[in-house]
C-alpha cells in the first residue's frame, strides 16, 4: 500500500515541504498535511481564546462594583453569551483534538497522515466559516445574541437580537467537529503502524478516539435541535414554542443530550494528555494502562446517560430526576480510576518537575475541586439549592478551565519543542504556572462561596454583601489574564528567538519523540514497526544511541 518515499533532502522539515504546488501562504491555506492543519487550528483557536479572555475580563470589570460600572445591562447579557459561545464552541471543544489531536494522533500511531486529509482541511474551513458567522452576528443590525450559550426556549424564539446566525454558526462548527471525529476514528482503525495493536497505542490516542465517538454520535442531536430552532424562528413552525403547543423542556433535553457529552469532548483529550505527561516526567511506565484506556471509553459511554442533571429544577418528572441523579454518580467511577492511576504512576518514580509536569499538578488539584463540587450539583437535593447560582459557574470553570484549560497549556509546553523545534524560557514557564494558579483561585473560588450564599449566575447587579468577594474575583481575573498574555508573549518570543530544541528534550518514549523536531512531511522516512509497550522507558537507551 505504501510506496517508496522520494524526498529530496534540502528542506528537511514540514515547514519547508509543501503538499501542493503552491508556495508561501497558499501552501498553508490549501495544505492537506495534518501538522500544518493542526497549526492553522492553533492560530485560530488561540486567537478566539484570547478574545474570549478579553470578554471575560470585561464582564469581571462590570461586576467589580454593584450597579453600572462600564457597560449597560443589555451589553452585559451579550457579553456573557459571547464569552460562553466563544469559549465553548471556538476554544474548548475543538482545542485539544483539533490542534494536538491533528498534529500528534497520526504520529503517535505511526501513520503518515489522517485517513482523509482533504476532509481534514474541510473541517478546518468549516470551523473558520462558523467562527466568522458567529462574529458577524455581533455587528449586524439586530444586535448580538443575548440568550446565554444554552439558547433556551422560549426566549430564543422571542428575542429580537440576532439568534439565527449564531445558531447556524454553532451548527457549522458542530459539523466541523463531526468530520474531525470521523477522520480520527477511521485513522485509528485503518492506519496504525505494523505491531501497533490497540493496546499499544499511547493513551492520548485512546482518549482522542473515545472523544471522536462522542463527537460523531452526540453532535448531530444538537445539530438538529439548533436547526429546529432556526426553522421555528424563520417559518413560525410550531416545534418547541409553548404558544404553539411545544414543550420547552423537550428542547432542554435535546440540548443537553449533546451538551453534556460535549463536556467529555472537552475533558477526555485533556485526560489523555495527562496520561502522556505523567509517565514521561516520572520516568516510569504508566500504572494501569488498560484501566486508563478503558475508563476513557467508559466515561464517553456513561457521559450519555446523565444529561438531565442540568435540568433538575426545570419541572421534569421526579422519576427522571432521581434516575439521572443516580446515573450522574457513575461518572465519578471512571474519573476516579484515572486519578488514582496517575498518582500511582508517580509513586516511586523519579520526578522531573519541568513546566508540563507542573501544569499537570495544577490540573489534578483544580480538577479534583471541580469534580468533587460536581457531586454537590449531581445530588438532587443540594442541586435544587445551588442551581443557577455562582456555585455552578465556579464548578464548571474549575473542571473546564482548571481541567481542560490548564491541560491546554500543559500540552502546549510539552509539545512546543516538537512542533516548532525551539525551546521556551523554562523559568518563565514555571513562574506562569504559579501566577496562573493564584489568579485562578482568586477568580473562581469566591464564586463557590457567593453561589452558596445565593448569588445567581448571569446577573448584571448584586446585593452589597457580595461586594468584597466580587472585588477579589475581579482582581483574580487581572492576574489570570495577565499570566495568559505573558505565556503567549514568551512562547511567541521562543518561536522566533528561542534556542534550537533537541528531538527529545523531555525523555519521552512515544513515537513523536523518535522523530526529528520539527517532523518531516509525512512524519516517517519508513513506517516504524512497533515492538515496545507504549511507555517502556528501557527504549531510552537505544533511542539515545540511534
Amino acid at each position, binding site marked *: 500500500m505504501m510506496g517508496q518515499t522520494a524526498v529530496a533532502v534540502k528542506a528537511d522539515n514540514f515547514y519547508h515541504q509543501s503538499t501542493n504546488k503552491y508556495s508561501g501562504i497558499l501552501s498553508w491555506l490549501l495544505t492537506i498535511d495534518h501538522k500544518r492543519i493542526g497549526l492553522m487550528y492553533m492560530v485560530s483557536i488561540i486567537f478566539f481564546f484570547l478574545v474570549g479572555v478579553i470578554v471575560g475580563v470585561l464582564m469581571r470589570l462590570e461586576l467589580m462594583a454593584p450597579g453600572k460600572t462600564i457597560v449597560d445591562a443589555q451589553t452585559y447579557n451579550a457579553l456573557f453569551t459571547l464569552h460562553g459561545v466563544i469559549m465553548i464552541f471556538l476554544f474548548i471543544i475543538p482545542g485539544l483534538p483539533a490542534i494536538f489531536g491533528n498534529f500528534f494522533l497520526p504520529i503517535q500511531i505511526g501513520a503518515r497522515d489522517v485517513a482523509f486529509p482533504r476532509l481534514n482541511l474541510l473541517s478546518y474551513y468549516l470551523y473558520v466559516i462558523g467562527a466568522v458567522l458567529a462574529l458577524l452576528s455581533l455587528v449586524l443590525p439586530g444586535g448580538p445574541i443575548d440568550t446565554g450559550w444554552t439558547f433556551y426556549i422560549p426566549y430564543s424564539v422571542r428575542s429580537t437580537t440576532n439568534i439565527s446566525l449564531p445558531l447556524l454558526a454553532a451548527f457549522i462548527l458542530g459539523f466541523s467537529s463531526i468530520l474531525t471525529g470521523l477522520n480520527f476514528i477511521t485513522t485509528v482503525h485503518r492506519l496504525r503502524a505494523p505491531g501497533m495493536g490497540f493496546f499499544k497505542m499511547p493513551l492520548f490516542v485512546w482518549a482522542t478516539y473515545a472523544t471522536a465517538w462522542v463527537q460523531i*454520535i452526540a453532535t448531530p442531536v444538537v445539530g438538529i435541535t439548533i436547526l429546529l430552532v432556526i426553522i421555528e424562528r424563520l417559518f413560525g413552525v410550531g416545534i418547541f414554542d409553548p404558544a404553539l403547543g411545544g414543550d420547552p423542556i423537550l428542547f432542554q433535553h435535546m440540548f443537553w443530550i449533546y451538551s453534556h457529552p460535549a463536556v467529555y469532548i472537552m475533558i477526555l483529550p485533556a485526560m489523555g494528555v495527562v496520561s502522556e505527561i505523567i509517565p514521561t516526567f516520572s520516568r516510569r511506565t504508566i500504572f494501569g494502562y488498560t484501566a486508563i484506556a478503558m475508563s476513557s471509553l467508559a466515561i464517553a459511554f456513561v457521559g*450519555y446517560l446523565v444529561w438531565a442533571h442540568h435540568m433538575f429544577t426545570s419541572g421534569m*418528572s421526579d422519576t*427522571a430526576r432521581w*434516575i439521572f441523579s443516580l446515573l450522574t454518580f457513575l461518572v465519578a467511577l471512571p474519573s476516579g480510576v484515572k486519578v488514582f492511576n496517575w498518582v500511582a504512576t508517580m509513586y516511586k518514580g523519579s520526578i522531573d518537575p519541568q513546566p508540563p509536569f507542573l501544569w499537570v499538578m495544577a490540573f489534578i488539584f483544580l480538577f479534583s475541586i471541580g469534580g468533587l463540587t460536581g457531586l454537590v450539583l449531581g445530588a438532587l437535593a443540594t442541586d435544587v439549592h445551588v442551581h443557577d447560582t455562582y456555585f455552578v459557574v465556579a464548578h464548571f470553570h474549575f473542571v473546564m478551565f482548571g481541567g481542560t484549560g490548564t491541560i491546554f497549556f500543559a500540552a502546549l509546553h510539552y509539545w512546543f519543542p516538537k512542533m516548532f523545534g525551539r525551546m521556551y524560557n523554562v523559568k518563565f514557564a514555571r513562574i506562569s504556572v504559579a501566577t496562573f494558579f493564584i489568579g485562578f483561585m482568586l477568580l473562581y473560588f469566591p464564586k463557590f462561596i457567593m453561589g452558596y450564599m445565593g448569588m445567581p449566575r448571569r446577573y448584571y447587579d448584586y446585593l452589597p454583601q457580595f461586594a468584597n468577594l466580587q472585588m477579589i474575583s475581579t482582581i483574580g481575573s487581572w492576574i489570570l489574564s495577565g499570566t495568559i498574555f505573558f505565556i503567549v508573549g514568551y512562547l511567541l518570543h521562543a518561536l522566533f528567538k528561542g534556542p534550537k530544541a533537541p528531538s527529545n528534550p523531555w525523555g519521552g518514549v512515544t513515537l513523536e519523540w523518535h522523530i526529528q523536531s520539527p517532523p518531516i512531511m509525512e512524519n516517517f522516512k519508513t513506517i516504524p514497526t512497533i515492538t515496545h509497550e507504549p511507555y517502556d522507558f528501557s527504549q531510552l537507551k537505544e533511542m539515545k544511541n540511534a
Partner: protein
Amino acid sequence: MQHENPKHKHHHPGYGTYILVWLALLAFTSITVTIAGVNLGRYTLFVALLIAAIKSSLVVNIFMHIKFEEKIFKVFLALSGMTLVVIFALTFFDFIYR
C-alpha cells in the same frame, strides 16, 4: 491501480438476490398499508414499527452490504443503534412519569 485490487475480493450478491430483496420490501410495504386499515388498537404502532424494522434490516444487510462487511462495521452499527435507544428510553423517563 490497474490491477485487480485484493481489497475487493469480498463476496457481493448478484442481481437475483437484490431483486428478491426488493420484492420482499414491496410485499412488506403492502402488508403495512393493508394492516393500517385494520384496527389493532394499541398494537397498531408496534406492528407498523416492527415491519419498518424488518424492512430496514433488509436494506442495511443486503443493499448496504453490512452482512458482508468486516465485523467492526457491525459493532459500530450496534453502538449507534444502542445510543439511540438509550436516548429515547431516558427521555421518556421524564415524559411518562410527569
